[in-house]
């Protein structure tokens, strides 16, 4: 019985002119999006890899200088690219591409792609995620709005129910039929999308991530199948069903995500530049200042160290006190910088809670979150990179300070090091977080999506059982 209904629904949808036209249009757009996106990852990856090489070259070939001066000369780290970023660019356009690593400062990254583009670029980018997330649901709405309302209007519903079809069976049949029509297009899309992974750099893990991504989008589309059937069962006439379905799509995909994000932003605002840096300054002033021997903490540390080594002045220490104290200062400072960065992440987490509440109204937010995370283009992946870059900064500066501490006499600021030394310094080798690390951030979103799918299905069952026949 269910399969009979499903088959009939599937067939009648396929014969609709609007199905054929919409399929054509969507397929074209999807292919275009792949064309537009396929080299997004590859070109960014190549640019940044080359830039890293050049930056390293600058570092190694820098003029002979004192190691501390080298620490101020600094080097650059460049944002990593993820293979799946072709599918979903996430927040990529709004995170900085270059990061300057130098002593005593934790810089903000610079050069966001969005500032180099025009404002029109924010009206939408054609990526596979956009098509699956925004256009496909509309496609589902257009296909399914008449599923029940049309039958009711034409009187077929009466016939169906008179034949002894129960409401639950009716729902499952309709849902299955509609779902098959959707899958007919979604499955090739998702398979085609996987082609993007054949580009160099995609490992087994990326395939796993893609699999989860596909799952998330399928769940998402499933939610819309339920939504459209819900609206169709509720509406009195087909016209009403159409307008209501479109309204639901506009609400879920356009209005709620933007509104939720704005509400979250105002509810949990991030600090202004001044507030952020004053916070850091305040914390630093209560800490170790490498260049300022008059500072209280330095004095304390000095006393302790002198005691430890049993000498009466820093000149008599078996190592260069200047290098030592600078590194200590560096380590304390980075602690302060990281603390404030984590404060930011906390605010983002609070904002995300607002998003999670709003996703009761819109599964689009949930899917976006999961999609960004799996593609590696979310905020947390970026901050993972920033944290790793900071660790590298400390290590590199540590090598400079260490050299100063071990191999320089106290008070000697004239001594220099050359290429031989600089070439021996460690390189920045960024390891992307593995799926297992990312999973705790993805699983809640996926679980909520499953919940959405189930609840919308239950709602459908309810409304089908109370179906108005006339």
């Amino acid at each position, binding site marked *: 019985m269910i399969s009979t209904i499903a088959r009939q629904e599937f067939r009648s949808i396929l014969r609709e002119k609007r199905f054929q036209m919409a399929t054509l249009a969507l397929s074209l757009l999807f292919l275009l999006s792949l064309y537009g996106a396929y080299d997004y990852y590859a070109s960014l990856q190549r640019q940044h890899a080359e*830039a890293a090489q050049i930056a390293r070259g600058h570092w190694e070939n820098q003029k002979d200088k004192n190691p501390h001066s080298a620490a101020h000369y600094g080097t650059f780290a460049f944002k990593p690219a993820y293979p799946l970023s072709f599918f979903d660019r996430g927040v990529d356009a709004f995170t900085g591409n270059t990061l300057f690593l130098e002593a005593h400062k934790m810089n903000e990254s610079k050069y*966001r792609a969005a*500032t180099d583009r*025009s*404002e*029109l670029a924010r009206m939408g980018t054609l990526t596979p995620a956009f098509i699956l997330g925004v256009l496909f649901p509309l496609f589902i709405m257009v296909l399914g709005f008449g599923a029940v309302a049309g039958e009711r209007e034409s009187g077929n519903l009466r016939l169906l129910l008179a034949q002894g079809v129960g409401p639950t069976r009716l729902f499952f049949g309709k849902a299955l039929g509609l779902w098959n029509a959707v899958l007919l297009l979604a499955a090739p899309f998702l398979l085609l999308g996987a082609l993007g992974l054949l580009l160099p750099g995609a490992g087994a893990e990326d395939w796993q991530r893609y699999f989860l991504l596909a799952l998330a989008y399928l769940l998402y589309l499933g939610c819309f199948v339920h939504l459209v059937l819900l609206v169709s069962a509720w509406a009195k006439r087909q016209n009403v069903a159409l307008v209501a379905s479109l309204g639901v799509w506009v609400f879920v995909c*356009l209005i709620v995500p*933007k509104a939720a994000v704005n509400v979250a932003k105002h509810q949990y605002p991030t600090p202004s530049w001044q507030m952020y840096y004053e916070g850091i300054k305040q914390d630093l002033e209560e800490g170790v200042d490498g260049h300022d021997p008059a500072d209280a903490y330095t004095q304390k540390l000095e006393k302790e160290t002198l005691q430890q080594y049993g000498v009466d002045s820093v000149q008599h220490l078996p190592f260069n006190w200047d290098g030592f104290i600078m590194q200590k200062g560096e380590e304390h400072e980075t602690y302060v910088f990281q603390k404030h960065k984590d404060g930011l992440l906390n605010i983002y987490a609070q904002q995300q809670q607002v998003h999670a509440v709003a996703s009761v109204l819109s599964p689009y937010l949930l899917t976006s979150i999961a999609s960004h995370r799996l593609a590696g283009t979310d905020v947390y992946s970026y901050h993972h990179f920033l944290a790793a870059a900071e660790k590298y900064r400390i290590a590199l500066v540590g090598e400079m300070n260490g050299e100063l501490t071990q191999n320089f006499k106290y008070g000697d600021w004239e001594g220099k090091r050359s290429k031989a030394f600089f070439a021996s310094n460690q390189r920045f080798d960024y390891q992307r977080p593995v799926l297992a690390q990312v999973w705790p951030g993805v699983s809640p979103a996926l679980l909520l999506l499953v919940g959405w799918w189930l609840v919308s299905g239950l709602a459908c069952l309810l409304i089908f059982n109370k179906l108005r026949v006339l």
Partner: protein
Amino acid sequence: MFLLQIQHEVRQFIRSPLALLLFVFLAGCMAFGVWNGARDLAQKRGAAEAMLQKQTEKFARLQAQADSINRNLKAEKRWWLDPTSALVIGEFDRGGWAVVLEPASLSILATGLSDLQAEAEVLKISGSAVRSSSDFENPVNLTFGTFDLAFVVTFLLPLFVIALTFNLVSGEREQGTLALLLSQPIVARQLFGLKMLARFSLLGGLVLAVMLSLLAAAGISLAEPALWQAAGLVLLYTLFWFLLALAVNLRGQSSAFNALACVAGWLLLVIVVPALVNLAAEKARPIPSRAVFQNDLRTADLEVARQKERILTEYFQQNPQFVRKADEQKGDKDWWIEEFAVLDFDQSLKDSLADAFEAKAHQQADFAQSLLGLSPALAVHYQLVTLAGTGREATGGYQQNIKKQQQEWSASMRTKYLADQKLTNTDYEAFAALPTRVRAEADMGNAASGGWWLLMQCFLVGGLVWLVSRRPW
């Protein structure tokens, strides 16, 4: 006759719960948009004012301290904190002159790029340091974009218009009143023309009334010409969608078909075409890599190092009051003399790199701008952002004005330092008189192009209506 139609339309509108609901929803969205814009503006202004307040306090303290030092009442052993030193105040963290980038008051209209905009820059001898709260803004918020008035107008207003006009004619036919109407002694075309005009007047009037009252409530003066330009723009945009719905209606199909066709038009023009235009712009005029740019700046340093000898020789020739010393004999000031000597060359080299980059990056924006004619959504969004003063031209405008001020600051502080002048009360009072705000005045060459494109698009659709109406009912 027109008055009769207006009366008829208003009556129908007021008595249709769906129409009222849609209108209230649109008005609500517009209110939310304006509220968001106003809040963002207030936040930016607050941050800027706080910064200026801090600066006033800081410089007051520095002035007091400098005064005590000048009168030998106090001493500052840490040379890098000495408030009487033009170098310290001109260049180091202790000093620097903060200038606020005045947010455009019309940014309530459209956020544009203003959520990425820095709120201040600190002028120093060697350049200016950016102070931007948007560095800390959650990128997720930036990705989804602001729910501003421009969003409501560009994306939601057409749907409102479509929802109330998709059955302009087909509804009458399905209702049965079409035949009754046509059996009256009136020219059908005239009747429908007036009917359309009446409905457009009603819709346009409602939307404008809401928009203008909301913006006025948000603090934009009704005397502001940009406000009326925006109103005209919104009216044109409403007209476009209205004419499109009319053209679809004149094909004589059912209401359901009309609704689908109009929504397909919306989808195409408002969602798909902009995305395609962006794709085309990306492919045709890719933005060069900032990573490469960053490294190029480094390489420029090497170039400066290479040219240093030549520049220094020239400089000491032109400034015989300074004597070039060997490295071992250089005092602090001698190092700085040499730094300053190469500064201009260094700046011009880096500026030329930045300009070259900007020029290339701008090509992408220009390319997208040349395609405004493809979609009224692009045209209206672009024009609203331009009117609000939050577009690329405005950003560029800030930069030009900042540059001027920075050069003045740099020149004045350098001169003072090289002349061994200590900073006194007079100097500090002069600082207090320096401008602290910068506006985004720029050459708005193509400023109205969005508006003209929209007008042209209205004509095109009007022509389409005329073409379709020649076929029989």
